[in-house]
């Protein structure tokens, strides 16, 4: 059974005239990495909040995440234990006076024994390259370091699903790479990841991409399939990764046979010569 198993999910904000999400079907298997894209206001962040149990669906034929029913009284609260959510601005998520205190926060709330907390904090410091920063104050770290600390804090509590809502939007390029590498590593360890993003090159990290428009899912498939749908991309206010944008312009000029998605692919295709 999929870890995220949702059919006909609907959500409407209080006082709104329209549904923010409507008729959403989403099945994500254990270990899958799914990207969610769409224009501003298409419902991406709402979906992230629902998956993390931070809001409750208005209704659904089925809304199971890690075995919890998102529509039930207990389910939408219990799911928070299994699903970690990381937002755009790490400063809204960092609570500790030092990096290690921040990582311990969620574990202390679970009332784990102290040695277990200490062991778990050490493990997270090593896993996210934060060991040298353990006694530093989070607000004095770089953006990428802060976001990695927030991510480690979210994952310090054992999670089955990680939901990320534009986690790199505020970061400099190096910080962005650090956070994406950490997320990719967690996915490779078997963590199920749902990444909401506006960055088309981040979509390439995912196994599958879901595109939302007006609160409905209008595309689902591998990243390469989405980037081949040029009219749909335009309708959805999306775009191409830079290598694909150059690649497409070259195809239109007859200088390239196939769409390239990454810099490596583009360089290789150009060095191989004209088609």
């Amino acid at each position, binding site marked *: 059974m999929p870890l995220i198993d949702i059919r006909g999910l609907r959500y409407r904000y209080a006082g709104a005239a329209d549904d923010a999400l409507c008729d959403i079907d989403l099945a994500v298997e254990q270990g899958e990495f799914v990207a969610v894209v769409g224009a*501003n206001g298409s419902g991406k962040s709402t979906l992230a909040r629902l998956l993390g149990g931070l809001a409750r669906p208005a209704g659904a034929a089925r809304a199971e995440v890690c075995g919890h029913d998102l529509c039930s009284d207990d389910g939408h609260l219990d799911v928070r234990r299994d699903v970690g959510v990381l937002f755009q601005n790490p400063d809204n998520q960092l609570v500790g006076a030092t990096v290690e205190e921040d990582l311990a926060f969620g574990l202390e709330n679970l009332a784990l024994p102290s040695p277990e907390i200490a062991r778990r904090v050490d493990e997270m410091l090593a896993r996210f390259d934060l060991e040298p920063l353990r006694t530093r104050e989070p607000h004095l770290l770089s953006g990428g370091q802060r976001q990695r600390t927030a991510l480690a804090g979210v994952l310090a509590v054992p999670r089955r699903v990680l939901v990320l809502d534009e986690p790199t939007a505020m970061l400099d390029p190096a910080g962005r790479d650090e956070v994406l590498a950490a997320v990719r590593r967690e996915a490779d360890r078997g963590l199920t990841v749902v990444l909401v993003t506006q960055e088309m090159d981040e979509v390439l990290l995912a196994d599958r991409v879901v595109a939302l428009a007006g609160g409905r899912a209008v595309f689902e498939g591998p990243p390469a399939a989405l980037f081949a749908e040029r009219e749909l991309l335009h309708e959805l206010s999306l775009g191409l990764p830079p290598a694909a944008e150059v690649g497409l312009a070259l195809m239109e000029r007859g200088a390239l046979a196939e769409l390239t998605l990454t810099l490596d692919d583009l*360089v290789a295709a150009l060095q191989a010569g004209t088609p």
Partner: protein
Amino acid sequence: MRRRGAAVTELEPEGARPLSVCCEGVSFRYDEGATTIAALRGVDLTFAPGASVALLGPTGSGKSTLLQLLRGLLVPDEGRVLLDGLAAGEGDVEERRRRMGLVFQMPEMQLFAATCRDDVAFGPRQLGWSDGAVDEAATSALAAVGLPADRFGARHPYSLSGGEQRRLALAGVLAMRPGLLLLDEPFVSLDPASRRDLEAILRDLRTGGMGLVLATHDVDRAYALCESRVVLDEGVVVDAGPWRFGAGGEDVLLAHRLKPPFVVELWRRLGRGAAEAPPQLTAAAEALA
């Protein structure tokens, strides 16, 4: 001296004249309780009239602080900011300060009026312009950001999409006829289409002679829009001037948590001179085809 009152009831807007801005030994510190954080140290920079300059640097490097110092919202602890050679308190330096428009990060958070037209008209009205001038300024600013007054003027700002709200906030600044536009991370959180729209608007403003200082992590767009760049790190200017790219690891951008633009990386990988990389992806494709 111009007084407000019976003699001069209706001021008219100045044209969007460009101006030069110069930082001389500018330092600024934030006091946070017991600790003091040096946001900028000994910054010497000159922004020529009508120039377009990208401010690049890691998070916390001082980009936003510098924009607020240029605009006069913060006052340097040391050094001074000169506008057309005039220091604070000299001549009509205040009139020149008004010719700098600052677009904050996430400026749509500041939209407040009941209609788009009223929101955009707020600034010009505060400047004491005549009703006719206010109206004309609002209409042309809305047109400049692709939200024509006849279609959008009467709409509520919150009925717009995220990208449209960002452009409306920009119109509110443009309505005051700046000669220099200071932008703090204008592309953040926008969808790809909205970023393309905003880039096109900024390009049009450039073509019209507007000066730009663009603080951003989006190096590709910075390269496409700006002739030169300033690299800040930990409050210090580590490089300033026209774009130049070293070989791989010697690159000043890579050395400061940044990345060269995509086209530069592509040119490098293809063994072409990085300095020859065209600023835009379409131009790059043309050159390669």
